[in-house]
């Protein structure tokens, strides 16, 4: 019997053929991703691409596994690229990347299998444009944010101190300092406070120049735990209704802690107990001093190689976690707030979701079941499956897939790919010849539309200055999305155009092509099916195509890297919701 005899026998040949031929995109190689990759290979899938930060694997040599060590949000993974796949599978750990892949799959009209786990709980669902609910059809809880003044001046709970240690002080000293959103929050009541906070940050920058010196930790300590607190105390109004903070004094604690110079000792008993109990003031002090020295050494070392180097918060980095724990606890002490153990701080600072192998294995199995259903063209057999291993008498609970939410801004949208010469085509051309209802093969959107690129409006009825600008002048270049929203009275869905620059077209009088996946309730406007291609002739002399030497393809070349053998790839999984986001947000963890 051959390797795949079991699966061929159970699936039967026609479905098994589809399995061997279809192209799978797997996004994420954490707990679920690694299990899933293994299941896919064993189930006979032969064309798999994986996007993950890093992972090294070798499987059956007959299987083509292409690993992209990259962020799914990189420009190279555009709609065209997504369209190369038959099924996309998400094995992600954060909302932002999930939303991104959801959007790309809607735009590319590719089925997406979405999944997630938390402890004993898990969930798998299937998303297909126009047929099911998409990831954004139901609003997701947003991350809690805190007012700057709460974090910087008037903390009242442990999380405030942890956020201060992690987002403010750590970044000021070792990382990329956040742009202070202080001005945005300024009002009459807190103007004085904001001024003080700004000065605090400036002074800290001066101290930072002495990094690496013997007194560095002491200077930082005096600055943030003594001087800044004393300055805060001068704002008497603030403390009328609150318990005023009590500054700490470096020398006093230093005397108390006889082990001040051997701060590293505690690391030798870094067992569960040490991690899970609340440290004393002296312990916090020692860890604070020691971790600052460790982090300074590391940063200076890195800066020798790259002067721009910074350290990033990583909850699994012992030095960083020590620093955040000790710093948050010292601040908590000052403000009379409950202190937390290192174990607790890790969870609070890292937004850790408990993860276990068992749940991930089950979910990875269900994902493949759903993939088989998709390949058999039996979307009606796909279900949202919930695993609840803890409480319910049934382990798995199914729900039929819901239809799209009629007011969803992500999936109740027509997605088009528009190939056009962005150097020549103007906004007016786009509006009149492509969107305009009067034209024979226009998209029938009429004139009363709003055109947006990202958050900025390019055109609406009251703003038509840009009509004669070319796409390029409007910064609408290769890969950019623009959104067209019809006015309120229209029963049409908004349209999203993914723009690709193209210089030449097959026929002499063509000047653009459009491909689209059109939401079903909108098809009455256009007599095409969901995968339509419309090629248009050039209507006016102005649009005559001129061939130039311009590069046609501005796509960065995709770097492929074959995986290499590493049998230890399975580590205790790490499903985390990332908080240290920003534009560089990483999609997976190893």
């Amino acid at each position, binding site marked *: 019997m051959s*390797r795949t005899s*079991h*699966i061929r026998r159970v699936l039967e040949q026609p479905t098994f053929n589809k399995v061997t031929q279809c192209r799978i995109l797997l996004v994420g190689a954490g707990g679920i991703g690694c299990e899933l990759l293994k299941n896919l290979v064993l189930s006979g899938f032969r064309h798999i691409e994986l996007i993950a930060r890093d992972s090294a694997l070798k499987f059956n040599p007959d299987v083509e596994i292409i690993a992209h060590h990259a962020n799914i949000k990189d420009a190279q993974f555009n709609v065209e690229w997504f369209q190369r796949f038959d099924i996309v599978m998400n094995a992600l750990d954060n909302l932002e990347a999930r939303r991104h892949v959801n959007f790309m799959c809607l735009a590319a009209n590719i089925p997406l299998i979405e999944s997630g786990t938390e402890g004993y709980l898990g969930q798998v669902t299937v998303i297909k444009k126009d047929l099911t609910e998409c990831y954004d059809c139901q609003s997701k809880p947003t991350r809690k944010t805190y007012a700057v003044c709460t974090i910087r001046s008037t903390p009242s709970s442990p999380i405030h101190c942890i956020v201060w240690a992690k987002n403010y002080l750590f970044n000021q000293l070792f990382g990329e300092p956040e742009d202070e959103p202080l001005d945005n929050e300024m009002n009459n009541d807190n103007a004085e406070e904001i001024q003080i906070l700004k000065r605090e940050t400036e002074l800290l920058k001066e101290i930072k120049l002495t990094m690496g010196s013997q007194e560095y930790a002491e200077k930082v300590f005096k600055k943030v735990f003594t001087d800044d607190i004393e300055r805060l105390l001068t704002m008497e109004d603030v403390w009328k209704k609150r318990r005023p903070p009590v500054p700490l004094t470096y020398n006093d604690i230093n005397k108390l802690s006889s082990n001040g110079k051997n701060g590293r000792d505690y690391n030798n008993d870094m067992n569960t107990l040490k991690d899970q109990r609340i440290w004393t003031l002296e312990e916090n002090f020692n860890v604070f001093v020691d971790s600052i020295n460790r982090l300074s050494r590391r940063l200076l070392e890195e800066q020798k190689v790259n002067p721009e180097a910074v350290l990033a918060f990583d909850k699994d980095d012992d030095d960083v976690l020590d620093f955040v724990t000790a710093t948050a606890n010292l601040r908590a002490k000052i403000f009379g707030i409950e202190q937390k153990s290192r174990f607790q701080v890790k969870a609070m600072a890292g937004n850790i979701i408990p993860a276990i192998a068992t*749940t991930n294995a*089950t979910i990875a199995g269900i994902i493949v*079941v759903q993939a088989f259903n998709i390949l058999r063209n039996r979307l009606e057999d796909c279900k949202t*499956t919930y695993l609840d*291993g803890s409480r319910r008498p049934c382990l798995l609970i199914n729900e039929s897939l819901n239809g799209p939410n009629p007011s969803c801004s992500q999936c109740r949208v027509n997605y088009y790919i528009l190939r056009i010469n962005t150097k020549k085509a103007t906004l007016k051309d786009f509006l009149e010849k492509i969107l305009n209802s009067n034209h024979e093969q226009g998209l029938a959107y009429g004139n009363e539309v709003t055109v947006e690129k990202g958050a900025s409006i390019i055109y609406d009825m009251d703003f038509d200055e840009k009509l004669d600008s070319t796409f390029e002048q409007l910064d609408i270049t290769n890969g950019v999305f623009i959104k067209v929203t019809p006015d309120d009275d229209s029963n049409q869905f908004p349209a999203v155009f993914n723009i690709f620059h193209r210089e030449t077209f097959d026929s002499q009088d063509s000047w653009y092509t459009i491909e689209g996946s059109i939401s079903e309730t909108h098809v009455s406007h256009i007599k095409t099916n969901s995968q339509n291609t419309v090629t248009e002739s050039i209507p006016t002399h102005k649009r005559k195509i001129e061939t130039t030497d311009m590069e046609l393809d501005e796509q960065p070349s995709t770097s492929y890297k074959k995986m290499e053998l590493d049998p230890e790839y399975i580590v205790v999984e790490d499903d985390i919701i990332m908080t240290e986001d920003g534009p560089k947000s990483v999609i997976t963890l190893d």
Partner: protein
Amino acid sequence: MDKTQKYDRQLRLWQASGQTALESSKVCLVNGTATGCETLKNLILPGMVLAEKQSIFVDNNNKINIIKSNLYLGIGSFTILDGKTVEASDIGNNFFLDAESIDAPRAERVAILLQELNDDVKVITTDLHEKPLLKLSEILWNAKIPLIVVRTVGFVGYIRVVLPEHTGNVYFNTNVVETHPENISDLRLDTPFPALLEYAKTFDFEKIDSLEHNHIPFVVILLKYLEQWRNEHGNKLPSTSAEKNAFKQAIISGKRVPDEENFDEALAGAWKACSVTKIPSEVERIYNDAACSNISFESSSFWIIARAIHDFVENEGHGLLPLAGSLPDMKADTQSYVALQTIYRQKAKEDIASVRAHVHKILSSIGRPIDFISNQEIESFCKHAAFIKVIRYRSLQEEYITSPKKSEIARWIRDPNDNIVHYLLIRAIDQFYERYQRYPDAATLDEEDGGNESEFINFKSIVTRLFNDYGIKEIPSHVDDFIHETCRAGGSEIPNIASLLGGLVSQEVIKIVTRQYIPIDNTTIFEGIKSTSTTYSL
């Protein structure tokens, strides 16, 4: 990598006590099939290594013949019992086998490869001869060793948890202590104990300044207003919704400024404060169980502690369980929060001490040494005294022979969407194997017409006989498709179903080992085409 870091994510789920339980348990896998190995992998990854206890996995692709002594081999490690050698088809569906493994005794290869996953694990392989599952389960049942039976046939998976009613071994009873209730806060606001009342009285709501006023813990606020209410209402708690609203109004009127968070917390807790603390009736039944009344030398630690708590409730507890002693987060200054926390913890400690005294009295009355039950176990039990659960399983003997649930099964089978059909078909496959020493093979891939008809007829006759045994005279028409499907799948295990079942089964093992959450009672069938699962008590 130290253990705290390595196991960080799971420690957050089952705590150090769960991790200790896992690491000190031992697993024996009978047959290293794909599903078996997936299961073991899921147990090795979380660190299941050293052993004081042992459980058994059976994947009955082979018939099993285990002599009892095999179960005690390999202290501190996994045991895999398997007599088969590796075939090429095993490599396809079993991630833990590589091309070099072909023809090696399967158990040996599986052991070596599993060992690489976690250097804390040692694997022992044992040659194994085939004999029926029933015989094994009988041995295990008598030895009070938990058994989980797992099968995968094509798209169908089957899990049966077989645990004795209760056991003499503290680590192996069917009693789940830590069920992880969402909210174990037990504040005793309706029946405050003296230390709590005394502390509440130290707050003078009128005299303190506004900073102190908005830091009065909500527990104290509720106690004050409840006392006030009782004084005005003949010592009764607010009970009707009108009364509860009036009670809330009283709290609102106590605010000095509208945005006092601590008063808002008190309002949020007002409804709960008005309800009488009592023992949940299903928990009360456990404390009144015959196993609790008839404590003997054979009694497990669970029942001894349960009896001690029963005695506590009758005496010191004045009708209430020992206090859990935990306090939720609240708006308060550190000093009063810590003071309050200390008061609750102190009371919980006193209650535990009383229970411990009862435990020791019971132990000496049955001739057990005091250290038969650790203080830690008593503490953990007391903390979750309101959340214990007992499951009494049926044995496989009962299920198959002495009292099969014939009428239920005959009823369920009439529903075309019911998964019970797969239970019967998996049993039919076993019977087929027993007769022909192989699985049915109705379809070979070379045959265009999709199958070997005589094989199907042979299989169907076994199915018919089995259905007759369950009083099902006529096989419902919808069952025919499933018979075909099962016959075609034969003994095939497919990787994603193996992964899925491996996940589910290991989760059950972890629940049993850590005694957290509630294991299934007693059979789950998964059907991977519609991806439905059903749990039956068979």
